[in-house]
């Protein structure tokens, strides 16, 4: 089989790429190893910055009709379990990934993308250093698809991306996460998602917390009454190693020791067990191209370094890679130099915000005083205009953490006026 573009993986990133490529008139084959709709273990949040893409794809209304709850308040829990509510216009939608991803995939197929499910891509065909297609297993038979361009979007465990050397091997950004659906949640306010970044809780000293970043627990409501919630945590391999705990043990430790957990989850129970996945992330957009292929989403370690939102970078990655692909097909040039534009473009979009996030990671997590300042500040100035919570939080932090001769100072800027 010969195609112009083959997109491996039909998650949000792959579907977005397939949609935008097909819109540019390219012949696209979208493949996925699962049979759809498929289950995906995740925090189930579609953040507000995705709405423009949903509108482009014509699925905004359908997504809205399926949402379980809209998060308008992010409740941050800081050191000593001090609580501050960050109110925003619109932070995120909570839709089970099983349903939401299927809507996105169908949105892509409507534009004329060919879709094959149950097709597991096992390796890239590489000839003279150039990716020329994929090999895989379809219906228990070997299958080969040749293509001028391969878009790799098959998630954090991607073997194809590793085959072209794309793998973030920085151990400090190596995270695991688990999530379960809990019934009988109490005391939650409607439309509030609770994020717990508590350095006091973390079973480690300040140095460890600094080293191993923000690793929140979260409670996200799944219905209007907020009696059901998706509860989870993410934690880095380094921290687990430092304490010689598995992620299950770590999560249970939190359930036993945290007052917040007792308040919200005291009488709750997990319906079908905690499930987990690997959560890659990176400090900036990493190299995500190779001759004849581009890598998007989790496969390129795209979740951001602070909130670990992966859907937005994946779907914007899909959009931008289509722009680059169009130029590549126009010039019939699929070399590394040509495709490197994708890295630059995606970097321009995400790197500035991520830089702020990293400064938060590096400066505040282990620093309880700074954290308390932030919480106090949030209590004083509760309304937030910006629609994308991730970005606003970054701005917020920038006010509190003011760069002064290479050092961060905090505490004196509580008025909120930036110079």
């Amino acid at each position, binding site marked *: 089989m010969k195609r112009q573009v083959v997109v491996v993986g039909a998650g949000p990133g792959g579907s977005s790429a397939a949609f935008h490529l097909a819109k540019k008139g390219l012949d696209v084959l979208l493949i996925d190893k699962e049979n759809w709709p498929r289950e995906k*273990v995740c925090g189930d949040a579609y953040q507000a910055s995705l709405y423009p893409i949903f509108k482009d794809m014509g699925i905004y209304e359908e997504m809205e009709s399926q949402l379980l709850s809209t998060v308008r308040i992010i409740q941050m829990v800081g050191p000593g379990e001090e609580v501050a509510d960050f109110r925003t216009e619109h932070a995120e939608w909570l839709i089970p990934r099983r349903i939401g991803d299927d809507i996105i995939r169908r949105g892509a197929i409507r534009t004329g993308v060919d879709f094959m499910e149950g097709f597991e891509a096992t390796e890239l065909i590489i000839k003279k250093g150039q990716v020329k297609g994929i090999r895989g297993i379809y219906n228990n038979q070997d299958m080969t698809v040749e293509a001028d361009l391969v878009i790799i979007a098959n998630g954090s*465990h991607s*073997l194809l991306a*590793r*085959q072209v050397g794309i*793998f973030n*091997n920085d*151990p400090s950004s*190596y995270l*695991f*996460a*688990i999530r379960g659906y809990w019934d009988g949640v109490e005391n939650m306010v409607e439309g509030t998602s609770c994020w717990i970044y508590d350095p006091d809780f973390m079973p480690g000293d300040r140095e460890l917390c600094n080293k191993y970043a923000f690793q929140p627990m979260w409670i996200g409501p799944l219905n209007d009454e907020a009696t059901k919630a998706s509860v989870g945590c993410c934690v880095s*391999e380094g921290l*687990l*190693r430092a*304490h*010689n*705990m*598995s*992620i*299950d*043990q770590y999560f249970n430790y939190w359930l036993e020791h945290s007052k917040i957990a007792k308040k919200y989850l005291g009488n709750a129970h997990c319906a079908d067990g*905690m*499930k*987990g*996945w*690997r959560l890659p992330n990176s400090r900036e957009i990493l190299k995500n191209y190779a001759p004849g292929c581009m890598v998007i989403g989790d496969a390129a370690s795209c979740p951001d370094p602070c909130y670990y939102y992966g859907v937005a970078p994946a779907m914007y990655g899909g959009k931008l890679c289509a722009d680059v692909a169009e130029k590549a097909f126009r010039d019939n040039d699929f070399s590394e130099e040509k495709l490197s534009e994708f890295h630059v473009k995606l970097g321009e979009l995400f790197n500035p915000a991520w830089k702020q996030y990293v400064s938060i990671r590096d400066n505040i997590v282990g620093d309880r005083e700074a954290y308390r300042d932030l919480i106090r500040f949030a209590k004083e100035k509760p309304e937030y205009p910006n629609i994308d919570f991730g970005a606003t939080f970054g701005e917020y932090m920038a006010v509190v953490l003011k760069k002064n001769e290479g050092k961060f100072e905090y505490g004196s800027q509580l008025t909120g006026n930036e110079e």
Partner: protein
Amino acid sequence: MSMAGMSLKVEYDGAASDENNQTNQAVKKRISSIKKTIVPQEQVTAYINPSNCVNCGTCREICPTNAITENQRIICHGCPVCTEKPGISPQKMEELTTSTSCTVECPLGVAPQGYIGLTRAGKYEEAYNLIWSKNPLPSVCGSICHHPCEDGCKRGILVDYPIDIRGIKKYLSQKVNVPVKKYNVLYDENVAVIGAGPAGLTAAHYLSLAGYKVTVFESSAEAGGMLKRCVPEFRLKREDVDRDISKLQEAGLEIRLDYRIDRFTLEQLKDEYDAIIVATGTPNSKELKIPGSRLAGVMGAINFMEHVNHGMELYRHLGQVFEFKNGEAVIIGGGSVAMDVARTAKRIGASKVTVVCLEEGEAVPAHPWELEEVLEEGIELIEGYSPQEYTTDVFPHLTGVKFAKVKSMGKNDEGNFEVVIDSDNTIEIKADWVVVSIGQSADAWWKDQKDDNIFFAGDIASNKCSVVDAMAIGRKTAIEVDAAIQGRRVKNPMDEHELVMADVMEKIFPYNRRKTVRPKTPMLDAAARVNNFDEVEGTYNDYEINQEVLSCLRCGYEVVDQEKCIACGMCQVHCPMGNVITMVVKEGGDE
């Protein structure tokens, strides 16, 4: 190529390793081509492609500068997506990664991952030769090895089931029929091996590979030792034993049958041979020292198995003559041999078979799968009873055995094994004949034979009594003999086999790997097998073997240390996969 270098790498004190013209020419040709086309040899290093390496260890063992180490990939186990079992902490995962692997668990040092990978690549002959270079009895081990390698399989520990390594070996040993390489005689020294059992044959094989002229002396009419005398046919077909032995003879091993060594012939051997390996095993059943042990109806396990294997129905031994085919049988003992005896008794027509052993529960020495098969065949197992007396109505005919409940057992203060019984709690089991299977002993006179040139191997030298352990001691003894003759330092390459944790880039996510569709090893039903001596465990077919080898996680691969590599090219010449090792310019070198 030099098999000697491959299998017996014993380090010299300052001397160079064995040479072989063919290899050297290939190496010289390769180096000259590198010199001409690329860069000076100092800047060239071997590079092993981790994605193609099957981790057979051939290059690691052949490397003259020990520049190659085995890396083990971490198997991601941090979150539940990759596995159903509870996650373990990364720290414990690291410990597991650097301590466990099929390649270090095999007592003989065969690398299972190597022949699994070669089988996956369709290189059946290379896979067979890889086994044969370390293990002279692949068919036998394919049938009755207790497979410690499978206990080390990370797939079994972390994901679902271990790879059926023994089943793959059995398939290869039956499928592949290639002429094996002839032994090269390199040295003037010759070695005598007494006993053609697993240990003796293994020692002979290793010494022959190393380049000695070896002669094996066997007292009985056929080689194989306990494999022929004692192991029942439904576990190990005689043709499998014969196949392995004929391969050894084909390679040039001399086996002299019907040649019993006694004190006088031993003196002759001492004159004629530079070293003598005694691997006579433990041919005598231990007797129970309780009243009535000379009654007609009591026999030892080895005598019993020998009688059955020769098709006899009348037992004759030191004044005891009786028929043992029918009636009720009691087997005393809880080891693997006792289980074999019980299943044999069932097959020859005993109306009821009862196994009685001292141990209880987990402590029963037989392997769990053996106990399972025994119970399937309708054999009764009574645990925790100690035999007290054989009873008789009409002397000298046995009518039953009295047992007493065991209270405790273990070593007493003097260091002797002691069983404390509860004399109020006794049972008597009716028995027409009894097989005592409580262990074996060696011929006593060997104990006095102490000489610098005499080495002991196999069961006679050890308490471990499984086939592969006996072979491992045979191998170790061969290394000792080689070292003694050549005046080298004794150095077992297996002791130096270390596992190094691989780079995080190589991490394995079981989520990505093929789900196990493990075909169950073909087995005869209990009803179909208890009346005959057909082999119980079958062999995989071509499709099943493919499924099985594909589910290997491929945890290990070899890595070259660029600092130590001298770019001799030996590894490239010997690599059985052929396309794995390339010569590249060193990192940081001139291009």
